[in-house]
Every structure is written in C-alpha cells, then in structure tokens.
C-alpha cells in the first residue's frame, strides 16, 4: 500500500502537536549550539530557536497563527513562571539587610532611564507611535514587558522581539561598558545587567560572578515591578502633554 503523504501533511500542518514539538526541538538545538560554543551571548538559544522556526514556517508556508495554536501551550507557562520569580526574589530580599536605600535608588534611576531613553531615541529616529509604545518596556523580562505593551497600546509580540534583542545587546556590550566606566563592584555590575538586560543579562552575570548573579536576579523581579507600576503612569502623563 502506498503511504498517503498528502493526508499526513494535512494532519501535521494543522495539529498543535507539530508546532509544540517543533518549538521544543528548535530550542534544544539552540541550547546545544549555545553550550557547545562555550556560552557565547551572541549564540543565544532563544535567538537560534526563533530563527529555525521562522525558516521552517517560511519554507512550509504555515502562517504564524496556525503555529501559535500549538505553541500557545508553551507561551501560557510565562504567567506561572512570572509568579515563580517570587521565590528567588524573596530569598534574596531576606539576605539583603540594610542596603535597601541604595538598591531602591539604583532601581528607580535604572527603570526610568531604560523606558525614557528608549522612547526618546525612537521618537528622535521618527518611529511610529505604536513602535515607540512597544519599545518602552524593553528592559523588563518578557511576560511583564508584553503585559505592559498590551496595556498601553503597543504590539506585545514586537515587544517580545525587542526584549530578546535588548537582552542580547546588554549581555554583549554590558561588561565592556562597565569596565569603561570603572564600575568594579560585583553588586553594581550584576544589578546593572539585570535592570538593563533582564534574564539574558543575568545569565551572563551568573557566569562571571556569584554575587553579580544574585543581584542580577533580584534586579529582574524588582525592575519588572517598578516598570509595570511606572510606565502606565508615565504614559498617562505623556498623553496629557501631547494633548491626546
């Protein structure tokens, strides 16, 4: 009997199982390449997986929303994963006695710089309003950033891409900038990487120094909270000034 490839293809291209399997396999390939390269920030597993799936979708002519019907099962876990950040963050808060003021000041300045400079530079470069709004939460970990973008009228998926790009840019240029500015303390180096470049920056900080890694992890959670509270307020003020 001749195998019915047509029918197999019809099943595969429409089933959520294919998209879900492809997502996991692409990520495992990306992670394998990253580990084999000696953890080079430029060979980020997420970046590789996204490129692989993009090529597969383009070659097979499957549209994004068909893919997302399967991939949404992975995507859904971003919610509980965000809540799970409470565990490392609360563990670190317990061990940080007496440094609250310095951390709060660095957090406030960092969050504000991240959002305001992204918006101002994009405005100067004539980006559309929707793009500017998608860029504002770019330094926050993805689930929080997407939630913020959705709230203020940006495109959550464009934000997700900008967040990942921000993480890679921060992980690559961050250590050079910190050396250049003579910021040598491990707590300051780690916290700066966590505020500016969330999880990808943190992964880099953990590799270099344990104290830097701990401060970077704390920074992801704190910056998520600070930015989620700050951007909608800043957005309301900005709308008021522009007379919208």
């Amino acid at each position, binding site marked *: 009997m001749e195998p019915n490839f047509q029918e197999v293809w019809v099943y595969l291209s429409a089933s959520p199982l294919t998209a879900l399997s492809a997502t996991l396999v692409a990520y495992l390939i990306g992670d394998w390449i990253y580990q084999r390269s000696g953890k080079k920030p430029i060979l980020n597993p997420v970046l590789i997986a996204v490129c692989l799936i993009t090529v597969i979708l383009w070659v097979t002519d499957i549209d994004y929303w068909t893919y997302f019907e399967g991939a949404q099962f992975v995507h859904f876990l971003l919610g509980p994963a965000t809540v799970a950040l409470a565990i490392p963050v609360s563990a670190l808060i317990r061990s940080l006695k007496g440094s609250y003021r310095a951390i709060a000041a660095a957090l406030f300045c960092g969050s504000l710089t991240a959002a305001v400079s992204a918006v101002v530079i994009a405005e100067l470069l004539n980006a559309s309003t929707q793009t500017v709004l998608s*860029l504002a939460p770019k330094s926050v970990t993805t689930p929080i950033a997407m939630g913020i973008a959705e709230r203020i009228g940006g495109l959550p998926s464009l934000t997700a891409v900008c967040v990942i790009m921000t993480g890679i840019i921060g992980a690559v240029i961050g250590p050079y900038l910190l050396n250049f500015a003579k910021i040598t303390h491990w707590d300051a180096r780690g916290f700066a990487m966590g505020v500016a470049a969330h999880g990808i920056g943190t992964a880099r900080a953990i590799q270099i120094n344990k104290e830097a890694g701990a401060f970077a992890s704390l920074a992801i959670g704190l910056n998520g909270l600070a930015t989620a509270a700050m951007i909608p307020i800043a957005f309301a003020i900005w709308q008021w000034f522009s007379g919208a």
Partner: protein
Amino acid sequence: MLGSITVLLLFQLLGEILARAFDIAIPGPVIGLFLLILVLLRRPEIPRKLDETATGLLSHLSLLFVPAGVGVIAHLALLGNEWQAILGSLIGSTALTVLVTGWVLQKLHKGHRDGA
C-alpha cells in the same frame, strides 16, 4: 509538584482577577508575583517543594520566550520599515541603562560597605 503549580496558578488567577476588578494597569501575573513575595516574606522559610518547582520552571524560562519571539513574522513589515529606529533605540537605551544603574548603585553602596 502538583500542589506547587496549583499555588503559582492560583496566585496568577488572583492577580488577573484583581487587575480586572479594579482596572489596575499592572499585568495579572505581576500582581500575583507581588502577592506571593509578600506571603513568602511572612513565612519563616520558603516551602521546599515550591522552591524546587520554581527552580525547575525558571531554569527553562528562556524556552517560554520562543513562541512570542517567532511572532516577529507577523510584524515583519513593521520591523522592515523601522528597523533602524528600533535598533538605534535598543542599543542606545540599553547602554545608558547599564551605565546609570551601575554608577548609582556603586556610588551609594560604597558608604554602606565602609560602615560595615
């Protein structure tokens, strides 16, 4: 494991309900994160099973970014027109944020260290 996942989902659900009921401009999971931190800080220690589940889930955090990252396909036109502005903003803003955050913490934390 199942109990811990249920705890995480319930805190997310509580966050989503509060965000909608009071029209709060903070995403539901972030409110859930904040509430769980408050609860955990009041306990003598973090429950071991919850710690294990969270560590497991967060060790694969980057995988969870993939479907949204692929979403760039749906917005290729937008990126195509504005990629210079987007890239310029991302590089400039990320560099500034690293410098400002690191500088402020190093300046202020120094005093604490000398006193310690």
